[in-house]
């Protein structure tokens, strides 16, 4: 699994989460096996193959599917959504400031 290659935002040292980050987050909370299962289930629900989820729209689709699992899994999914949203908002601001 390659980490996300999208640009780090200057000053914030922030990059958007990708598949490796989400899977690791699930495994931190639920353990290696159960966390991995939840990620695989979300990938299948999104019509994608675990281990081959690209950054951007495909990843966001899997996070949505993760959220649909509900309970504490949805809480982990919300973490990913907030990190994506923060990255998008700060990246847009940084791009505007550099023009």
């Amino acid at each position, binding site marked *: 699994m390659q980490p996300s290659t999208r640009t780090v935002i200057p000053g914030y040292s922030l990059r958007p989460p990708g598949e490796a980050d989400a899977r690791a987050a699930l495994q*931190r909370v639920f353990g290696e096996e159960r966390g991995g299962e939840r990620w695989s289930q979300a990938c299948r629900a999104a019509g994608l193959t675990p281990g081959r989820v690209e950054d951007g729209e495909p990843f966001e689709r899997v996070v949505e599917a993760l959220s649909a699992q509900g*309970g*504490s899994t949805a809480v*982990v999914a919300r*973490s990913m959504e*907030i*990190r994506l949203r*923060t990255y998008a908002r700060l990246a847009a601001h940084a791009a505007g400031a550099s023009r």
Partner: protein
Amino acid sequence: MTAHDPLYDAARLQEIADLDLLSPEVDPTLADVAALAAERLGLPVSLISVVLDEALHVAGAHGIDGLWLGETRGHPVEWSFCATSVRTRDAFVVESAATHPEHATNPLVTQDGVRCYAGVPLISSRGHVLGNLCVVGLEERSFSPADVEVLRELAREAVRRIEARRAA
């Protein structure tokens, strides 16, 4: 971060889900508690935060309209002052963020100008720390024990309202 870090406790995260704390319907029930905290401590921003595993979620707020935080309603957990109280189950006060050993390099300090913080934990009746009631300012200041007690009192009210939603 360790395997026993409360941030990653599945039961704590399940409690956050059970209390429906990520719903946008929570903010109207808590915004006036946040406004009161800001007013009583004389600071521009107050949050009722929910600390997730990898992010902080803003469940109720005062003073963040027009800020990027008002749009994102959260930020990465590694920038969170509130995460400390999840780990210690106690108040956390930062009177000079720019010189604080943990937060001097925090982007909220270096990029967004946060200079002071005081927060107390929101502890559910099941014993889980959900997040914090906190106040944030753009200038250094000291916080008295009485200031912290004001926050504790308002935090109890916030938890009462949060749990009333579960009971309803």
